[in-house]
């Protein structure tokens, strides 16, 4: 059992045995280190001013990901490397830098400077760090990837155009900064930090634990069922920074090897509870382009780098984006307590608002997602005030089984329409047997949604809107599926998120 947190700070080893379980990474940087380049804009992971890059090993290779340091707990940094804006222009000259005066600048800083990418400058350090991680992504950035990368970095001054131009110019997929140059040394150090030791800092009353195995996790949680399990802290972080809750006992699952696994074959995908959205995205995309698009629109790049699908389910929110998606796909959920495990239908996990089928001391261990079969067609849509990095007003997911242009079975789930993510049982039934050729027959099924849901009004949308949009999305799905299966010629049906051109054969 190890009793100090170890991480790299721009390549240098830091060991701390005096951390508060609720201490955030941002507070560590600004208050303890006095590194004030990183800013606090909102304290809830929505503005990106506090963005830093986290280095970790993925399949043995060093990767840098942007995260919101305001809602990352310091203890979660164990085994990782932290790079902040304060580090970027340190060190030796950077190759490829153009302006004479800017020779000490990192290429993304240099491009930001030349494109007039800052005005008030407060969001700028976060944007620079976001672009730094894009610079290290092994691909040439285009407008789409840049929009995606920057979705979690709000700028109120520039209107983004110069920042996008700076990114287009500097993020070419050919990283040759000092971080790349000594990537090997950093990789070695990170490998050394991966000691597979359980981490426990504090005492029985107040601690930060980061077990290395499911076995230790299960035993600590059984002993401390009042502890809070934290995966990416994109929700729990706000309990600390906004609700100002004291969470004396934190169990972080990010080091539990078994929970970080994602496996798949032709029939199904199995996602460990500690797998981040970012790591799950690619595999989930093999189910359907719409699944990938929904995952892409969860939070921001920063949120997806730390948040997990397991956490999105476990916190039981009625407006989480992955549950309705996974319920429509008929996903199964595994829960573990001590050495006992059980598997349930994901939809049964959500009992009521704030109430889930989870016993004391029991934790979510994995999610099993069946892939689509030959005659199944899938559609999903997210509606929010802003396209990127917004919480859904509603989300709809449809899995239809089609036989000879007829719907033989429908599995539909909505988020944001009830106290839990919920299936539309009446509508599913009403759709059975409908001929996709005869659009006049759709209307009755569409109206059936009113029997399934009585949505609420809140700051995101009114009850009326939710119902009307829910109907609109079903019409849209039916329209898209009918044109796909019948005439192969589709009208433009979406203002964003057009499906990749891989229209499935008619069945």
């Amino acid at each position: 059992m190890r009793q100090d947190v170890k991480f790299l700070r721009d390549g240098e080893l830091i060991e701390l045995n005096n951390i508060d379980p609720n201490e955030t990474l941002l507070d560590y940087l600004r208050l303890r280190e006095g590194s004030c380049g990183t800013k606090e804009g909102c304290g809830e992971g929505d503005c990106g001013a506090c963005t830093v890059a986290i280095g970790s090993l993925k399949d043995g290779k060093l990767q840098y990901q942007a995260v919101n340091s305001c809602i990352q707990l310091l203890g979660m940094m164990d085994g990782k490397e932290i790079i902040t804006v304060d580090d970027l222009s340190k060190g030796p000259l950077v190759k490829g830098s153009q302006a004479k005066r800017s020779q000490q600048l990192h290429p993304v800083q240099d491009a930001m400077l030349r494109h007039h990418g800052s005005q008030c400058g407060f969001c700028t350090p976060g944007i620079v760090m976001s672009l730094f991680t894009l610079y290290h992504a092994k691909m040439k950035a285009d407008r789409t990837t840049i929009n995606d990368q920057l979705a979690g970095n709000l700028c109120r001054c520039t209107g983004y155009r110069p920042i996008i131009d700076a990114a287009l110019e500097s993020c070419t997929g050919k990283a040759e900064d000092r971080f790349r140059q000594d990537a090997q040394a950093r990789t070695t150090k990170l490998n050394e930090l991966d000691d597979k030791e359980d981490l426990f800092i504090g005492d029985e009353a107040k601690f930060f634990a980061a077990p290395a195995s499911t076995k230790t996790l299960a035993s600590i949680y059984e002993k401390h069922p009042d502890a809070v399990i934290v995966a990416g802290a994109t929700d729990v972080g706000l309990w600390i920074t906004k609700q100002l809750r004291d969470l004396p006992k934190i169990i972080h699952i990010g080091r539990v090897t078994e929970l970080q696994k994602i496996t798949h074959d032709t029939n199904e995908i199995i996602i460990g509870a500690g797998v981040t959205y970012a790591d799950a995205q690619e595999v989930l995309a093999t189910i359907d382009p719409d699944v990938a698009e929904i995952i892409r629109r969860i939070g921001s790049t920063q949120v997806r780098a730390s948040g997990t699908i397991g956490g999105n389910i476990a916190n039981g929110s009625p407006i989480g984006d992955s549950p309705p998606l996974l319920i429509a796909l008929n996903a199964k959920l595994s829960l573990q307590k001590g050495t006992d495990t059980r598997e349930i239908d994901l939809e049964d996990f959500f009992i009521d608002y704030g109430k889930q089928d989870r016993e004391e001391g029991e934790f979510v261990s994995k999610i099993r997602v069946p892939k689509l079969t030959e005659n199944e067609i899938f559609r999903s849509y997210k509606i929010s005030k802003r396209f990127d990095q917004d919480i859904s007003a509603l989300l709809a997911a449809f899995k239809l089984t089609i036989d000879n242009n007829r719907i033989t079975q429908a599995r539909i789930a909505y988020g944001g329409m009830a106290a839990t993510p919920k299936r539309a049982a009446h509508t599913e039934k009403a759709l059975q047997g409908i001929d996709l050729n005869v659009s006049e027959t759709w209307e009755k099924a569409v109206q059936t949604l009113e029997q399934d849901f009585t949505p609420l009004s809140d700051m995101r949308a009114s009850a009326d809107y939710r119902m009307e949009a829910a109907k609109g999305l079903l019409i849209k799905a039916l329209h898209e599926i009918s044109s796909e299966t019948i005439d192969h010629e589709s009208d433009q049906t979406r203002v964003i998120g057009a499906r990749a051109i891989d229209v499935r054969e008619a069945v």
Partner: protein
Amino acid sequence: MLHKSPDTNVSTATVGKDNKHDSAERHIKGTALYIDDIREPQGTLHLAPGYAQASCGKIKSLDLSAVKSAPGVVAVLTAKDIPGVNDCSPAMGDDMILADGHILFHGQVIFVVAAKSHLAARKAARLAKIEIEETAPMVTVEDGLEKDASVLPPYEFLRGSPDEVIAYSPYKITDSFHIGGQEHFYLEGQIAMAIPGDDGEILVHSSTQHPTEIQHTVAKMLGVQDAAVVCECRRMGGAFGGKESQAAQWAALSALVAHVTGRPAKMRLDRDDDMIMTGKRHDQACHWQAGYDDQGKLTAVNVEFNSRCGCSADLSLGVNDRTMFHADNSYYYPQARILSRRVMTNTVSNTAFRGFGGPQGMVFSERMMDTIAIKLGMDPLDVRKINFYGDEDRNITPFGMQVQDNILDELVSELESTSDYRNRRKEIAAFNEKSPFLKKGLALNPVKFGISFTLKHLNQAGALVHVYTDGSVQVNHGGTEMGQGLYTKVAQVVAEEFGIDLDHVRITATKTDKVPNTAPTAASSGSDMNGMAAKQAAQTIKDRLIDLASKLYQVDKTTISFAHNKVKVGDQEIAFAELTQQAFLERVSLSSTGYYATPHITWDRDTKDGRPFLYFAYGACCAEVTIDTLTGEMKVDRVDILHDVGKSLNPAIDIGQIEGGFVQGMGWLTTEELVYDDQGRLRTHAPSTYKIPTASDIPEDFRVNLWNSTGNREDTIYRSKAVGEPPVMLATAVFSAVTNAIASLSPGQVPQINTPATPENILRSVQDMKKRDKRAGEE
């Protein structure tokens, strides 16, 4: 032709160049210091506000014992701890620093906690037990109107007899719609740090657009002379009007704690607290009638703006006056009544926001143009053009000012052509014809925005220039830097004057002990006024140097010129630094103040007479959008902008202002929605619920150009024009394009839609149109 400006093709070395923002390198390195980054003096206390959880009522009891005994707490102060005047209002004396007895809005600050850490203070602030005897709050404009509650008397412009003329016009229309408010969402929240000094003196670092007002508020609150208080602001992490009057409360509370405890005190608002406790753009309920002829030409306009001012006057007088000043936008109203009611509600006091009421006025005029076009089946651009102000006639605004610098026809025609407006109009009609769910819309809207403070005495600025013997220069002025590049532009002006490189000019933090009695940095006037004042200060020193050189080198003054860090004196050249060294030896002062008062401003609010603006800035925007009629979702596909900045002081910075202003305006009219519940509590008080544009919201095809101007016809700094606010209003084109897209569903029917055009508002309007279209079909 009136609009032809004088030839101003003077060649310049620094002015007019794409110099980088003076702090750009520090921004991208993270080394630019904002107030929270300044090393705190030892023993600094951290503050947090305790606020009312009710919107209206009387404080029955206030139990702060748990707050006081919370870990880390050093002091808890209430209204009774204020030695002087408990007011942080900009003028009217109606904004309490700490509530005393009555609660006027949810979020009103009742006490302040000072603790050893920010977190300790925030945690302690939540432990208060406050009982409030609640009365039903007035939440909406309609609530306030019903009770006849107002923060200021109504104000009206009247020309002719619009009601009669409308009644007898060939066509007339009556309409109402609601214009939403807007949260500033400056990335750096409100913050101040006060450091006590010698003999009751106090230094306040404040993220403020108005250091002088901070100085006055703090002095008044502490009961000391203005001279005992210094306010400093090096830079703000964004402001947009939100730190014009409303930075004062946090500065005052910091100063209060520093005064009472004798320790430095810093107050940084948490984002949610900031959004709950500070005012926003005024939302307005707009009712209007207009008469027009078969060409769409207006005969008369009668418009009422009912503005939600919140619980106090704040800057509502000027803001709502400017709504009226811009209710005409670019159009001549032969007869007009423009009325503004300043409605009181039990919500946070609304305040300045980039455009200062102007955007609300222009959203109205643009909706009127769209409405007339739909009714007549005309292209909206043709209706707009036929109503433009004229050059020789039809050029008097409803407030009596003659429009003398009109470039609307040329500017709009150029954009019409470069944006390929007419062809795209046809393509869009064809698209809409065959697309069942998605519909496109297009609009090309003009902007005409008056430059100057409408409160005459604010049109003044001061500067202080020091030249050091090594030839380096320090500049200080009353303007503040909030990202707009003011410091850079003023430094360019000074460098130009002395003929030295820009990096020899150091701009120093705005500070009330350097340049006193300043106006806020607002009304887009920063570089117009401070640039002129700095130029004058530099000129004074330069004149002294010329006198000296003429004497020393025995040459005629006319042969002396400054360029490339050198001074040409007759036939010889000496280094600028050499001449400044000589000046010291010859006992010539190398320091001077400068001062500027904007000329020709004669507006008298009481008599509604005179000229409020020195000139107008113009621009136009063409926007194309696609809406989804099943969900109400909307995407802005392409935007073309042509904007007039006169002779630009710095084209790169000006383009940045235009793009940023447009996107901010677009956010206001599309995704940014403030939601209050029926108890008057703001429900959208964080970026998780209040959505400003992000990178993917800007149009993929975004073309921004500066109007090829021959220069401002008025004698402004290098014939440039102000650029801070006008571009916000270019975004009305997005709202008009949405209206246009919805209107395609049922030709001739006017879509009912409020701003912002959220998916929900668009879908409601779409469904309403479909119903009306169905009814029309059945009849």
